[in-house]
C-alpha cells in the first residue's frame, strides 16, 4: 500500500470514527430533558425517511423498476413483513422488472 493513500484512508477513518464514537461514549446516562428525549426518539424516523426518498428512485437501473420495487417494499412493510423479506422481494421485483423491461413495447 502506498503511504500517501494510507494517510488519506487513516485521516478519513479517524474523523468518521470520532463522529460515531463521541456521543456513544460521552452520553452515558438517560437524558431527562423531555424535548431533547423526544427529539432523539424521532431522529431515526426523520433520517431514514430522508435517506430513503427520493434516493430509492435512482437506486436501480431505471426509474420504472425502482418505482415498482419501492411499491413492493411499501406494501410488504405495511403488512409488517420482516426486514429480510421486504429487502429480498423488493430486489426480486427490480430484477424481474429489469429482465422484462427491454422486451416491452414502451
Amino acid at each position, binding site marked *: 500500500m502506498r503511504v500517501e493513500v494510507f494517510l488519506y484512508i487513516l485521516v478519513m477513518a479517524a*474523523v468518521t470514527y470520532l*463522529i460515531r464514537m463521541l456521543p456513544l461514549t460521552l452520553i452515558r446516562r438517560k437524558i431527562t430533558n423531555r424535548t431533547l428525549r423526544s427529539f*432523539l426518539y424521532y431522529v431515526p*424516523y426523520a433520517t431514514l425517511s430522508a435517506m430513503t426518498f427520493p434516493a430509492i428512485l435512482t437506486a436501480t437501473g431505471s426509474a420504472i423498476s425502482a418505482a415498482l420495487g419501492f411499491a413492493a417494499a411499501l406494501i410488504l412493510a405495511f403488512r409488517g413483513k420482516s426486514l429480510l423479506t421486504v429487502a429480498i422481494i423488493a430486489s426480486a421485483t*427490480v*430484477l424481474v422488472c429489469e429482465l422484462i423491461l427491454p422486451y416491452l413495447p414502451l
Partner: protein
Amino acid sequence: MTRKQYFSSGLKDGMPICFGYFAVSFAFGIQAAGIGLSVFEASVLSALNVTSAGQFAALAIIASGASLIELAFTQLIINLRYFLMSCALSQKLSPSLPLGHRLGIAYGMTDEIFAVSVSQREPLSPFYSYGLIAVAIPGWVLGTALGAAAGNILPTVLTNALGIAIYGMFIAIILPPAKENRVVAGVVVLSMVLSALFTYLPVLCNISSGFRIIVITLITAGGAALLFPIPDEPAEPEKEMPHEG
C-alpha cells in the same frame, strides 16, 4: 436472552444489510479501481470507514490529490449525521455499559446498523450489534474487493436489483411504527417531502446529501419534539441488563 442469542439475532437481522452493502460496495470497488486504487487499498479503505457517501466523496478528493485537511473536512460534513444517530443510539444503551463495548458498537454505527439497532428493545445488547457487524461489514469489504478486482464479474441487472435492498430494509423499519403512531407517520411523510424538495429544487439541491439529512432531521424531528413531546417515562428503577466485561 443470552449473549449468544443476541449475537445470532444480530446475524439474522444483518443479512439484508449484507446484501445491500455488497451491491453498493461493489459499485464503490469499481470506482476505486477507476481512480487507481489497488484491490488491497480499496478493501482497507472500506474496512476502516464503512460509510457509503463518505467513501464515494473521498474517491474524488483522493483522485484530485487534495490536502488531508480538505478530506477531513468533507468527511466531517458528510458524516455528521452519524453524530445525531449516535446521540439517539446512546439512549438505547444500558447506562452501565462499559467503555470497551461502546467503542466496539461505534465502529459499526452505519446508517443501516443504526436503523436496525434502534428498532430493538431497550437496552440494546452489544452482542446484537456485534452480530450485525459480523455479517454486514464482511459484505461491505468483500463487495469492494470484488468490484475493484473484477467489476464485470456480476451482470449489471443483478447489482441494480441488490441496490434497492437497503432502502427496502429502511422502509420495513419505519413503516410499522408509522402505522401505530400518527406523529411518527407525520415525521416520515414530511421528511420524504422535504428530501424530495432538497433534491430537485434549484439552490437547495446544492446542499450535500449528508448535510441535507441533518437539516431535514432538525426540522422534522425537532418540530415533532416541540409540538408532540413523548410522554414522560414512568418512574421505575433502571433495568440493568446482565452483561459481564
